[in-house]
């Protein structure tokens, strides 16, 4: 009986870990594109909050989850464009402008939440889709093949992003712009355009990441519901050395620790919950420490580009 319980727990952690990785995956893969092109968008958390709000609001009012997802994506695109305008065209310092975007997203989503919703309500989010046959395997089926559509898409996004970044002309341009914008410019690559595309794409995915929380994972919206997930997503990009596969392992590791922490509380293991909640953040700092030695940082990360400047 004790063994069965352990197996259930382990697969429970695996299942919730995979589910929890979803928002991190969307946000961090989007941020990978932005950072590979040399733009650090620190405002991911604010975009996620706006995406979570707009996705939830539209889904609730229209009764259509797909419309909600679309709204979240559009919101993300708009916020991404704002970040691109500030950090690419106006060449603002990226660490600070990201904090501005985060404050803006946090404030606006809370304002809208309080004026349009008033209180916490929940909706029926994207239902789980059980993959035939595979989903019937005991334990493994539930862990891997019984999730909502956004979970599957998040994991499909990883090889797709990997292919785009490493095997397409666009990906090559993105990396060139992030490593040496001047050389890329000389060769006729439009640095500004590439960065606008990546930051906007990153914004869209961050918006979807927010929606994956509010209409698929938790199915409600509340004030500051991301509680800093966007910042962790930014850190995961460093952890994954700017490679989508690495980012995925980071997201999984992170969400497993998170799931473990939740299960520790569920099982009533006497570890103060506030201490358990600290674990993921300590882990992130450790991860950043180990990732820091690798020399794969895009050389032009956080450096604005100005044509004709030495």
């Amino acid at each position, binding site marked *: 009986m004790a063994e069965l319980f352990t197996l259930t727990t382990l697969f429970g952690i695996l299942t919730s870990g995979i589910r929890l990785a979803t928002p991190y995956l969307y946000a961090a893969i989007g941020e990978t594109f932005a950072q590979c092109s040399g733009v650090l968008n620190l405002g991911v958390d604010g975009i996620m909050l706006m995406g979570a709000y707009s996705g939830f609001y539209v889904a609730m009012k229209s009764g259509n989850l797909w419309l909600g997802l679309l709204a979240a994506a559009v919101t993300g695109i708009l916020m991404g464009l704002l970040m691109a305008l*500030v950090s690419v065209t106006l060449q603002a310092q990226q660490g600070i402008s990201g*904090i*501005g975007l985060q*404050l803006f997203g946090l404030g606006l989503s809370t304002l809208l939440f309080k004026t349009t919703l008033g209180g916490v309500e929940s909706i029926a989010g994207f239902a789980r889709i059980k993959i035939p046959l595979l989903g019937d395997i005991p334990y493994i089926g539930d862990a891997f093949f019984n999730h909502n559509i956004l979970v599957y898409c998040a994991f499909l996004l990883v090889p797709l992003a990997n292919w785009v970044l490493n095997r397409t002309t666009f990906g090559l341009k993105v990396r060139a712009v992030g490593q040496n914008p001047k050389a890329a410019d000389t060769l006729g690559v439009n640095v500004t355009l590439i960065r606008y595309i990546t930051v906007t794409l990153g914004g869209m995915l961050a918006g979807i990441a927010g929606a994956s929380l509010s209409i698929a994972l938790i199915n409600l919206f509340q004030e500051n519901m991301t509680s800093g997930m966007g910042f962790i997503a930014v850190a995961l990009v460093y952890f994954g050395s700017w490679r989508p596969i690495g980012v995925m392992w980071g997201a999984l590791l992170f969400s497993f620790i998170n799931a473990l922490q939740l299960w520790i509380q569920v099982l009533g293991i006497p570890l103060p919950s*506030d201490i358990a909640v600290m674990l993921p953040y300590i882990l992130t700092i450790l991860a950043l420490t180990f990732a*820091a030695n690798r020399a794969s940082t895009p050389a032009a990360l956080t450096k604005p580009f100005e044509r004709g400047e030495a």
Partner: protein
Amino acid sequence: MPDNKPGIKEYLNRTLEALLPLLGLPLALLLGAVMLLALKVNPLTAYSAMLEGAVGSGYAISVTLIKATPLLLVGLGIVIAYRGGVVNIGGEGQLIVGALAATALSIGMSAWPRWALLPMSLIVGVLAGAVWGSVPGLLKSRIGVNEILSTVMMNSIALQFSNFLLRGPMIDPAELEAGTRIAQSALLPEQVWLTRMAPPIRLHSGAILAVVMAFLVYIFLWRTTIGYRIRAVGLNPHASRYAGIPVPFYQALCLILGGSFAGLAGAVEVMGLHHRMMEGVSSGYGFSGIVAALFGKLHPLGAIPASVLFGGLLVGGNQMQRAVQVPSALIDAILGLVVLFVVSADIYSRKRARRREING
């Protein structure tokens, strides 16, 4: 073409350069008004409630100054870090640990006389903030860990740590007895309370301390060798390295000093205002302090009026929420926009500086 005499046009340009970032606030307020209109609230009603709450009476002004105090102290830390070329987003966490440490010491050593306990509590707050800032500082200087991310993570750790202490080891014994279990510490011994300047108004001597600190930071940055080196590292790390300045050391120092000021802010908040440690002691000062520092043009003395301004904005926001039921989250959104505007306006000064270089 080269004309070195500053003519009227040049003078106007310089004035514009100085004022342009300051336009961020009215612009952000204007966009805030658009948001209010979209929410079917009359912006004039909302903003006049805000103004009333911030400066409408002697009492309102005192509340504004109380709010401005932690903003200024945190902002000074941001100024030092920024001048040294590092970004400290960790003010929030550093403030919390500063407040925790000052609380723990003053409650634990409540038998000490005022002349010993009060300064020691302040110092312990500073040290705790310094320790919290030293983690990102050392990680940055030794291993090259991005300080923006590590300071953000340190915020979350401090917050959870404080929740843990306030619900367990540090909870007010009276709360346990009453069974209410509100997460706050016991009252600090009276001898560490900062003097109130005009009781019953809660404005305390921490405000004066903050202003004095602003002048000290100014002297430190512009009149001492260490300050000079910090600014050199911030302006051009490569040149500084060739000049023999140990750049990583000064970057770590900047984060540690930044943490110290936020820690001091935490100690001042519990010793001057709340007289106990409680959840939400920081309420976003780590971030609004950044706004105040930026708006003060990253100058310690500029941070003084800037923190009064944003202190007023925060206080006015609360009043707006009470009087016309507009959530004070609007202020957060406006603060975010101010940051975006101010950092975007920089491009104008940079372009002009470049033109000056080219034209000799």
